C-alpha cells in the first residue's frame, strides 16, 4: 500500500464557515484512521477577509504542514487568487465555475501589495487578471481542475428535495466544498454525515439540510470526477487517539492540575482557553463533591493579574492566559508576585508584535520579554511547550514549579499552537502529579511567612488559615512581611529569593529542561512550536541519509547552561530555528554558553513554519549554500 500524505486547503471569507468545514474534514480523516495536522490562518477581522485552513492527513505521525497543497477546495475567488500557486502539479483544485470571469479588481479584499505581485506574475505569463487566467497557469503546471457550479448544485438539490428554500442557501457552500473533496478522494460517506450530525446536534433541521447537500455534493464529485490519483479510503485507527484544538492542552491541563481560578481579559489568541474553561466550569471530582473553576473576565490585564495573585494567596491554584500586549500590562504585578514569592502561572499565547503587530498571526517574539519582564531582580521560570499534547503535561509541571519554588511561572505557548488541530494520544491524567510544595494546612506557634531557611523556601500560609497571619508588601520586607529598608536584611532577602534559580536548575529533572532528539555534527537548538516542523524536516533529511540533531529547550529561564553545553560538546555546527527576527533564544544561548550560533533559520511573516521550508534551509546549510540568516516566507 502506498503511504498517504495528503494536504487539503479550504479557504473563504471570514464568517463563511471555513473553520467548521475544516473541522468536518479533519474529523472525517481522523475517523478513517489518519493522523491529522491542521492549521488555521485568519485576518484580524470579523467578517469578509480571507481565512484559510490547511489540513494534512497521513498514515504516519505528522507534526507540521508542508508547502504543497494536494487538493484545494474553494468556493470564492479570493482563495483561488491567493493559493493557486501552492497546489502541487498532480494535485487538484475544486472551484466554483461561476467565478471564471471574476477579475482581481472585483475582489475587494485582495490588498494592493498582493495584487501587484500577482499581476506581475500573470503579466510575465501572459495571462489575464482573472480566475480563468490563474487557473490556466495551474493547469499548465499539471494541476487537475474540478469546476462545479455551486449555485447549480443548490438548485438541483432544491428541485430534487422539493425544497425551493435551498436554492439560496449559500451558507452551505462550505459543506458542499468539503463534501466534493471527500467524494473526490473516495472517502466513505458515513463519517461525513455523522460529523455533520455532531456539529449541528442542537439544530436538527439544519443538520438535515446540510446532510442532504453533503450527500448530493459527495456523489456528484464521486461520479463526475474520476481522474484524481489520490484516494483516502481509510486505514486502521490508532488506539487512544483524540482530535484536539490547539488550546485544549493547556485548558484541560489546568482542570487536571487543580487550577481553580482563572482571571483574564479578552485577547487573541489566548482567550479561547479561558472561554473553554468557563464553558467547562463545573468539574467532576473523584470521591468528592463537584468542583469548579472560577473564570473571571476582568476590566483589563492588570486586574487579571491582581485577581490571580489575590486568589493564589488563599492557597488556590490560580492562573491567567494572555498574549504579548496583555502581558506587557501585567509586568508590574509580576514583580510583586516575585518579591512576595507567590505561585502563579501565566499562560502566554504569543502572537506577532511589536505593539498590536499582526494580531491574529503567529510569532515567537516574546521570549526575551518574558525572561526580563518586570522591574528589579526577582526569580521566575519561563517554560516553553512544543506541541499540544506536551502542553497538557507541561501545564501540570508549571503549577508544580510555581508551588514548589514559590515563584511566578510563565508558560510559553503561541498562535501556531492555539490555532492548530491535531490528532494525538489521549491525555493521561495519571501521568500528571500534583506537588503543592510547602503549602501549609495547619500552623501552630509563631509564624513568619518569609522565614530564612536553608534552601531559601519558607513554609507558606494562606489567607484565612488559622494562626497563619502574615503580611505581604511590594516593598522589601522582613521575615514577617513587614516593610524594611535595613541593608543587612535586604541582602539576606535578595539572596533568599534569587537562590531559587539555582535550585530550579538543580532540582527539575534534566529531561524536563531539555528534550534531545539526538545530537550530531549539525544540531538544531529551538524552543516552542517550531518543534513539529523541525522533527518532520529532520526525518525528511534522514530519508536522504543526512543526520541532524535537535535539542528542544523547554526551560528557558533559568537557562540550563551546563546541561546544554555538555549535550553540544561534540556538535560542530549549531543552527538556531525560531519564529522571530532577532533570534531571541540564540541571544540567550550565546549569553549563557559563550558560543556562537553558526546558522539561523528565522521566520517573522506571522505565518507558522512548514517542514518543507525548514528542510530546504537545512539542506542549503548541509550543502554549504546557506546564508548565516535563512529567512523563511512561505504562506499567504
Amino acid at each position: 500500500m502506498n503511504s498517504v500524505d495528503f494536504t487539503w486547503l479550504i479557504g473563504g471569507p471570514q464568517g463563511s464557515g471555513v473553520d467548521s468545514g475544516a473541522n468536518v474534514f479533519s474529523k472525517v480523516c481522523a475517523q478513517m484512521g489518519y493522523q491529522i495536522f491542521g492549521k488555521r490562518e485568519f485576518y484580524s477581522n470579523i467578517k469578509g477577509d480571507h481565512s484559510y485552513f490547511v489540513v494534512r492527513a497521513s498514515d504516519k505521525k505528522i507534526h507540521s504542514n508542508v508547502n504543497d497543497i494536494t487538493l484545494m477546495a474553494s468556493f470564492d475567488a479570493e482563495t483561488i487568487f491567493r493559493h493557486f500557486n501552492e497546489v502541487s502539479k498532480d494535485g487538484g483544485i475544486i472551484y466554483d465555475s461561476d467565478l471564471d470571469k471574476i477579475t482581481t479588481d472585483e475582489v475587494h479584499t485582495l490588498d494592493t501589495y498582493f495584487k501587484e505581485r500577482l499581476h506581475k506574475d500573470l503579466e510575465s505569463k501572459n495571462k489575464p487578471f482573472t480566475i480563468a487566467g490563474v487557473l490556466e497557469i495551474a493547469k499548465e503546471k499539471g494541476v487537475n481542475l474540478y469546476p462545479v457550479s455551486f449555485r447549480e448544485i443548490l438548485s438541483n438539490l432544491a428541485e430534487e428535495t422539493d425544497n425551493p428554500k435551498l436554492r439560496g442557501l449559500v451558507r452551505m457552500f462550505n459543506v458542499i466544498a468539503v463534501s466534493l473533496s471527500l467524494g473526490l478522494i473516495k472517502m466513505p460517506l458515513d463519517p461525513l454525515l455523522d460529523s455533520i450530525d455532531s456539529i449541528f446536534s442542537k439544530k436538527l433541521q439544519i443538520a438535515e439540510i446540510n446532510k442532504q447537500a453533503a450527500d448530493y455534493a459527495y456523489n456528484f464529485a464521486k461520479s463526475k470526477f474520476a481522474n484524481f490519483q489520490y484516494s483516502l479510503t481509510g486505514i486502521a485507527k490508532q488506539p487512544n487517539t483524540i482530535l484536539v484544538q490547539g488550546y485544549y492542552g493547556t485548558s484541560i491541563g489546568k482542570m487536571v492540575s487543580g487550577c481553580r481560578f482563572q482571571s483574564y481579559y479578552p485577547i487573541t489568541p489566548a482567550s479561547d482557553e479561558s472561554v473553554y474553561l468557563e464553558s467547562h466550569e463545573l468539574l467532576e471530582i473523584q470521591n468528592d463533591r463537584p468542583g469548579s473553576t472560577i473564570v473571571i473576565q476582568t476590566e483589563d490585564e492588570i486586574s487579571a493579574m491582581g485577581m490571580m495573585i489575590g486568589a493564589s494567596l488563599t492557597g488556590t491554584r490560580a492562573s491567567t492566559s494572555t498574549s504579548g500586549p496583555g502581558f506587557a500590562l501585567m509586568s508590574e504585578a509580576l514583580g510583586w508576585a516575585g518579591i512576595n514569592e507567590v505561585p502563579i502561572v501565566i499562560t502566554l499565547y504569543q502572537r506577532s508584535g511589536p505593539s498590536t503587530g499582526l494580531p491574529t498571526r503567529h510569532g515567537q517574539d516574546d521570549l526575551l520579554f518574558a525572561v526580563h519582564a518586570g522591574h528589579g531582580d526577582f526569580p521566575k521560570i519561563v517554560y516553553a511547550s512544543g506541541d499540544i499534547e506536551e502542553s497538557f503535561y507541561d501545564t501540570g509541571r508549571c503549577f508544580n514549579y510555581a508551588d514548589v519554588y514559590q515563584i511566578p511561572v510563565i508558560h510559553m505557548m503561541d498562535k501556531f499552537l492555539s490555532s492548530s488541530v491535531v490528532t494525538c494520544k489521549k491525555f493521561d491524567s495519571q501521568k500528571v502529579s500534583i506537588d503543592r510544595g510547602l503549602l501549609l494546612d495547619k500552623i501552630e506557634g509563631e509564624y513568619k511567612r518569609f522565614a530564612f531557611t536553608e534552601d531559601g523556601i519558607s513554609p507558606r500560609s494562606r489567607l484565612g488559615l488559622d494562626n497563619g497571619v502574615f503580611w505581604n508588601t511590594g516593598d522589601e520586607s522582613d521575615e514577617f512581611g513587614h516593610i524594611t529598608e535595613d541593608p543587612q536584611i535586604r541582602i539576606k532577602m535578595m539572596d533568599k529569593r534569587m537562590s531559587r534559580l539555582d535550585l530550579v536548575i538543580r532540582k527539575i529533572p534534566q529531561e524536563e529542561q531539555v528534550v534531545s532528539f539526538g545530537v550530531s555534527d549539525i544540531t538544531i537548538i529551538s524552543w516552542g512550536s517550531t518543534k513539529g516542523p523541525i522533527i518532520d524536516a529532520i526525518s525528511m533529511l534522514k530519508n536522504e541519509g543526512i543526520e541532524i540533531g535537535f535539542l528542544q529547550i523547554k526551560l528557558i529561564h533559568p537557562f540550563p547552561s551546563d546541561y546544554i553545553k555538555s549535550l553540544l560538546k561534540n556538535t560542530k555546527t549549531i543552527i538556531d530555528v525560531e519564529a522571530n527576527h532577532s533570534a531571541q533564544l540564540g541571544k540567550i544561548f550565546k549569553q549563557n554558553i559563550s558560543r556562537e550560533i553558526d546558522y539561523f533559520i528565522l521566520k517573522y511573516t506571522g505565518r507558522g513554519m512548514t517542514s518543507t521550508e525548514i528542510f530546504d534551509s537545512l539542506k542549503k546549510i548541509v550543502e554549504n549554500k546557506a546564508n548565516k540568516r535563512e529567512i523563511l516566507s512561505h504562506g499567504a
Partner: protein
Amino acid sequence: MALKLADYKTEVHNDWCPGCGDFGIVNALQMALAEMGIERDKATIFSGIGCSGKTSHFINTYGIHTLHGRVLTFAQGGKLANPEMTVIAVGGDGDGLGIGAGHFVAAGRRNIDMTYIIFDNGVYGLTKGQASPTLKLGEKTKSLPSPNTNFNVNPIGLAVASGFTFVARGYSYDVRHLKDLIIKAVKHKGLSFLDVLQPCPTYNDINTRDWYAGVDLAQESMERHSRIYKLEDIHFDPIVHYDDETEVNEKLSQALIKSLEWDRKIPIGVFYQNEIVSQYSTRLTDRIPNYLENPPAKQKISENGLPVTDVSEILDSLRI
C-alpha cells in the same frame, strides 16, 4: 477568649506625620474589627500604595500591601477564591480614583461582598504633595507650583454611578462615627464604599482640620460651626427599601445631589444602600450551585500527589 482592641494592633512603627488624619482611620478600623469580634485570621486588609498603603502593616490581621491603583484587583481575587474571609481594601484617593479608577468602576459592576475605604485628602502625600483627583479645580495646595488645572472627581457620585451598593462618607476626626460606618459597611451584603475625609497636615493647607471645623466661617459670622454634618441628623433615608425602579432612581438621585454639597456644608454618613442588587456570589451560585460551600480555596485537587479531577467525559468526546 474575646478579642480586645489591642489584639488588632501590630508592633510595627507608625511613620505617618504627626497629626495625620490616617491615624483616625486605622484606629476606627481596629475598633470596628474588635467590636465585630472578627478573628484575626479570618480578615484580610488589602492596601494600595502611599501613606494609606501602610495601613495593612499596622493591623494585626492578614495584611496585603499591594500596588499603586491595584488594590481592588488583589482584594477581589482573594475574596472570590475564599468568600468566607472578611475583606477590607484601603487606599488613597489618587490610588483609587486616579490610577485605579478603571478598577473602581469595574468593581462596582461586580458587587462582590467586601469593603473599600478611600483615604481622601486631595494630595499625593508620599511624593510630596502633588494634586490628587479629589482636589478642586483652581485650588493650589502649598507644594503645587501653580493651581490645579483638573476638575475634581466626585467619589460618592462615581461610586453610586458605578454600582456600589453601599456608599458612605466618614471623617477621620470623628473616629466613633467612622467606626460605626465601617461596621455598617462590612456588614452590608455587597460591595461597600467609604470615602473618608482625611486632612493631610503636611501638604494640604486648604482642607485642614480647622477648615473642616469651620474656623474660617466662624470668623465671618463670629460663631464657630463645623462644615461637617451628619446625614442621619437630617433624617436622610439612604436605603432602597423595595425592588422598584422609581424607588431605586430616587435613592440614587438624592445620593448624587447630596454628594455635590461641599464648601460650606459637607455631609457625612450613609448616602446610598441597596441590598436588593444581587451580590457577585449569588450570580456565581446561579451557575455553580456549591460555590460558597466549596470555593476555590477549599477544593480538593489531589490525593496522594495525583489529580482527582475527572476529565474523562471531555476526553471521550474528543476521542476518535
